[in-house]
């Protein structure tokens, strides 16, 4: 693999505040190392901007190992960029070629208003969880952990759904801005666990209703969400959510 420095042309969305008008601004970086992560390229660019007295680009990031779900960039029109099962923070510049032009835009959805540049407000996701994404058990009230046996298969399925990092790529990539994969994953996780059983009806209804309340669009089964999900959560979650919802109507 080449260690040759690359020239990368960036078109980055700059927006001063929630109510300002934004625009794509061109930047050219002529010393991009292929081993840099995508966010490190932004750090590098920001250092240069500050040294020229320009305002750095704001973007959300934290763990930089693909688990906290903070980073959110639409890279060349794809949520988190071109690499499968990879959040923007783990995308490396070796995925691009010398001379490439890369568009970088924030997640776009009415439910994710822009705060500044590439930073958006994803609190709608918290409110969906608040509506029912939990098991109502108080601290101290638990029985022995092995008192209830859970088949390995079910536990594994629940785990697959539980790996959601709440980054919002599913919404960003969805042509309809639907939050169905996020919501479905949580509902489906609990649907496969006996702990989720007592509240499964209320949970499905409340979370689905909250999704609409927040202004996310309907799911038209494009499955783009599954393709961009850094944890590759299957749209089966959405089918499960719908099953749970329908079942919840019949007491």
């Amino acid at each position, binding site marked *: 693999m080449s260690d040759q420095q690359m020239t990368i042309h960036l078109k980055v969305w700059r927006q001063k*505040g929630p109510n300002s008008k934004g625009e794509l601004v061109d930047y050219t970086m002529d010393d991009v190392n292929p081993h840099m992560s995508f966010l490190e390229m932004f750090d590098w660019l920001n250092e240069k901007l500050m040294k020229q007295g320009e305002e750095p680009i704001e973007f959300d990031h934290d763990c930089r190992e693909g688990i906290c779900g903070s980073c959110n960039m639409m890279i060349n029109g794809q949520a988190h960029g071109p690499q499968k099962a990879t959040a923007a923070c783990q995308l490396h510049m070796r995925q691009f070629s010398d001379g490439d032009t890369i568009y970088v835009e924030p997640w776009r959805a009415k439910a994710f208003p822009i705060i500044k540049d590439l930073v958006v407000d994803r609190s709608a996701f918290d409110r969906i969880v608040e509506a029912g994404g939990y098991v109502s058990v108080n601290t101290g009230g638990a*029985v022995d952990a092995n008192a209830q046996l859970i088949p390995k298969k079910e536990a594994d399925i629940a785990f697959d759904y539980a790996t959601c990092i*709440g980054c919002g790529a599913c919404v960003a990539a969805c042509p309809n801005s639907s939050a169905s994969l996020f919501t479905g994953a949580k509902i489906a996780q609990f649907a496969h666990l006996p702990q989720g059983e007592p509240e499964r009806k209320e949970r499905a209804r409340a979370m689905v209703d909250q999704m609409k309340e927040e202004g996310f669009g309907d799911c038209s089964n494009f499955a783009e969400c599954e393709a961009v999900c850094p944890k590759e959560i299957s749209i089966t979650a959405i089918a499960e959510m719908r099953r749970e919802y329908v079942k919840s109507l019949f007491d």
Partner: protein
Amino acid sequence: MAQTKEELFDAKIPEGPLQEKWDNHKNSLKLLNPNNKKKHHVIVVGTGLAGASASASLAELGYNVTAFCIQDSARRAHSIAAQGGINAAKNYQNDGDNIWRLFYDTIKGGDYRSREANVYRLAQVSNNIIDQCVAQGVPFAREYGGTLANRSFGGAQVSRTFYARGQTGQQLLLGAYSAMMRQVEKGKIKMIPRQEMLDLVMVDDLARGIITRDLETGEIQRHAADAVLLCTGGYGNIYYLSTNAKNTNASAAWRCHKRGAMFSNPCFTQIHPTCIPVSGEYQSKLTLMSESLRNDGRVWVPKKAGDDRHPSDIPDDERDYYLERKYPSFGNLVPRDVASRNAKYVCDEGRGVGPTKMAVYLDFRDAIKEQGLDTISGKYGNLFDMYEKITGENPYEVPMRIYPAVHYTMGGLWVDYNLMSNLPGLFVLGEANFSDHGANRLGASALMQGLADGYFVIPYTLGDYIARNDIKPVSTDTPEFDQAEKEVRERISRLLDNKGNKTVLDFHRELGKLMWDYVGMSRNKEGLEEVIGKIRDLREEFWKDVYVPGENETFNKYLEYAYRVADYMELGEVMARDALDREESCGGHFREEYQTEDGEALRNDEEYNFVSCWEYKGEGEKHDIHREPLEFEYVTPTQRSYK
């Protein structure tokens, strides 16, 4: 030696035999009746495992909780990145585990620099944690029969680690987060994300509130409460490059320290041996690779310094499998600190590999030959994939390159048995306190401690504090709040108005390098004395020449970064002082002057069997040290050996 202020450092260890201390203590704690709890208000800063579990548990009891986090959602706290697992003394495997053994392993692993009573309680409540998490729907790994699975972790001789693939921290945090969101829905918790604590407010010598900055709008806010719980994690980011998330920081703890809270054992930092090495100057953070890789991978470097050949062109007799050579019985499985230190030594000798020469090979060639590609890929497939994603190299064909990185800090604010700092009303939970891991933390114990503090300790001890002190509401409109807010504003203005020539990152990188070189894996008197001066100079330069862009009244990550690094500039000095003061080697603290003939850490139990407690004495002044003596009634400190 300065005088020990015994009265300040009463750890309030309950009477009675070790096994009965916690129960006795619970029996003696004062209770608040449910109606009274509703009248009390608690501030929780940070929403990692400790903060989220504390918030949820206290809200369930009836307290009104206001919780703050710097991330855009409580779910993103750095606990989420923990991979390995969580220990508990369940003995589900019938392999002879019990509370005593978990206690003993933890205190021994901590190289006998932690309190017996605290560690024993940790082991006791470990079992309740697993029950609680399972009840919340945390999808732990299971056996085909439906029972919970366990694995042996970090060299433990029993299988007591519960795990959820390589994402245990994530699953536990999401469990605590969802318990918390349930209380948000009920109106018992007010959750305020993107809000950073910048000062602690003391009223009548009690911790009564905090000053925060809204990270979206820059608004400086005042929040009052009956107690403040600090759950803000560790300070490993002081090294610039660490496995910590970019935004984790020491500022909240440091501000409490400057208001009078003692900082304990700051020099105890854990350096993890298997991280992906630095690839260039642009590097922003390091990624941990699970230590399980050392079960099958062989660590080596070329025998000859400056050997630039491709690893597969280096014949076996020109390779130095240095861990196997030096530690024939433990080989590649020596403890974290030993493995880390030896990697440093070979790189210092010029035998490091890769473009930066600051890495050693972790080679799976022989394991693949013996066990087959499928077996190895079954065990480590996801780790190999992650390695390839980051480095672009295929570890099935080319040996992995690894290097140690800062991972966890055992030191933190001093707390008593009730998790209360020496400032009444200020409680410190999780990695932010110093309490349970001594000089070295065992694998899969960080998650255990965070949740123990939040779910099972603070709900008891907080009520006792409030009941005993008859805490009445306080207004934010007091001179103390005025003063704290004023100081916060001044500090921010000073940073913004500075308009120097160097960026915050420039300074952080420099400070990190000083810390890594002098207060890192191995330390010595001369270096530590030297670095204290260097840190002071750098701090002075920082305040003269730092450039912070933009303004306060907007989303401004570089401003946040600036005040965090400003605090590191002060903390770094105290870490070096602590390392200098502790003239022994123990756990993560290795003083080159104090080692056995075999190069092992040599403790000095006669003189250094204490917790150091550093007291802030004012801007630019030297810190004072106090010492809380440690007593070992039930275990006898021994010397480790891995030969």
